[in-house]
């Protein structure tokens, strides 16, 4: 255990071919925090999430997790440090059942805590229990989102990365999922790093936030401060509270 932040991102640059997607990003996530990144489409939010896992790899800069330099570590070894992600597009295994998808999430411990953990996920998302034998590809978008988050939780993560958990979901379910995240953070001290387009909900939920514009962090501060910042309001919050 180091004394610094749990996740430290320093000067990270990521490219797709010759196109620069991240331009020297600095982000800290402290243990026990909920930190959010907000930004428009194409700002590089999802790229940042995947760069943490080395896929794509950062071409410059350094990423450390829990004191370990993970910048050039193979993706599966990064996952084994207990970073779990519910990625962009959910990436449910379509031809596996809900149960098998959750089992995949628990691969790290070889299903040692499976029964105990799966009950927690079902308490969080009772809908998944009803769908347990159904194939992932046949679930609705909202159910897939729940499964994606549930699968990430099955890994007993120290750090949970959530990429747009609210995308395409009904407001009621979004509220449910945000509530679940807050609950996990409060009761289990789970550290959450959240990417959202739903800036209002995310900033209300998060302790701290960063604003990402064209691959640069342009602003950062506590969730409350950003919520009341006129620039943030103008760019991300006007046009309705979700």
């Amino acid at each position, binding site marked *: 255990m180091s004394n610094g932040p749990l996740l430290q991102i320093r000067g990270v640059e990521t490219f797709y071919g010759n196109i620069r997607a991240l331009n020297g990003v600095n982000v800290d996530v402290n243990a026990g925090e909920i930190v959010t990144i907000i930004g428009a489409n194409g700002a590089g939010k999802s790229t940042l999430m995947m760069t943490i896992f080395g896929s794509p790899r950062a071409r410059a800069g350094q990423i450390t997790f829990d004191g370990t330099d993970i910048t050039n570590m193979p993706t599966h070894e990064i996952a084994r440090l207990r970073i779990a*992600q519910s990625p962009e597009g959910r990436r449910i295994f379509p031809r596996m059942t809900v149960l098998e998808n959750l089992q995949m999430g628990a691969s790290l411990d070889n299903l040692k805590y499976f029964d105990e953990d799966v009950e927690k996920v079902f308490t969080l998302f009772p809908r998944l229990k009803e769908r347990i034998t159904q194939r992932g590809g*046949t679930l609705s978008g909202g159910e897939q989102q729940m499964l994606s988050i549930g699968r990430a939780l099955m890994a007993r993560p120290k750090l949970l990365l959530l990429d747009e958990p609210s995308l395409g979901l009904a407001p009621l379910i979004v509220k449910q999922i945000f509530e679940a995240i807050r609950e996990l953070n409060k009761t289990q001290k789970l550290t959450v790093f959240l990417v959202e387009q739903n800036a209002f909900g995310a900033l209300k939920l998060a302790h701290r936030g960063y604003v990402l514009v064209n691959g640069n962090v342009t602003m950062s501060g506590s969730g409350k401060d950003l919520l009341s910042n006129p620039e943030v309001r103008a760019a991300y919050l006007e046009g309705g509270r979700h």
Partner: protein
Amino acid sequence: MQYFIQQLVNGLTLGAIYGLIAIGYTMVYGIVGMINFAHGDIFMVGAFVALIVFLILTSVFAGINVVLFLLIMMVVAMVMTSLYNWTIEKVAYRPLRGSFRLAPLITAIGMSIVLSNFVQVTQGPRNKPIPPLITEVYNVGGISISLKQLVIVVVTALLLAVFWYLVNKTALGRAQRACEQDRKMASLLGIDVDKTISITFIMGAALAAVAGTLYLMYYGVVSFSDGFVPGVKAFTAAVLGGIGSLPGAVIGGVLIGLIESLWSAYFSIDYKDVAAFSILAIVLIFLPSGILGRPEVEKV
């Protein structure tokens, strides 16, 4: 009628060997989406390793203990061919992963030629015979069923069951299916994708080695060029059964075996391959994903 059933028995035996080889094609295709054209030659190498082990065993021990010999031949062949296939994957296919689809395919054809030429150079171009290991033949109502046919069918059924269980019910199989469906997500969950793919190549090679040993035992002869035709037939079987499906591979293999033996029995032995491939074409017209192939209905 007796003649017909006799041909069924013969076709079933042949088909079982095709099926064992086909499983290797199907597993590799399922997980990396490439056709390992060297797989037929891996099968041939397996037969040769079994042959060499047999020769060593007979020169060391005076008598022949058939069961023990066959077991040792199989195990050594499995280990050796696994090593071959693992190496091929590592040096020839892995560096090309992520490049355009034709590259690994062409490399696979290259590896196939390398293997058969390697065996031709080191073992000579002639057919290599062994004395018959199992000679018992049973007569059931006028149909002769040899013990070696029974061994082949039983071993195939057993291995299919074991591998089906491995793929569908174990953590390893789950990891394999995860890599097949979404490699990137699998690695996000801590699955070592490279290792999983290596294991798949090893499993396929082990089955090909068993098929090679059984082939040697059944026909009593093997040559360096024996990888090609059974390889192509087994590949056809995998496509026919629905590529990606293990039971499909064996069903496809048995079908090809039956078509071949029945066609040879009633029409002309010269055109048995034409018959087998014509049936393949016809089946694919009506069932494009094969007999047990997965239908592509998914909500996105």
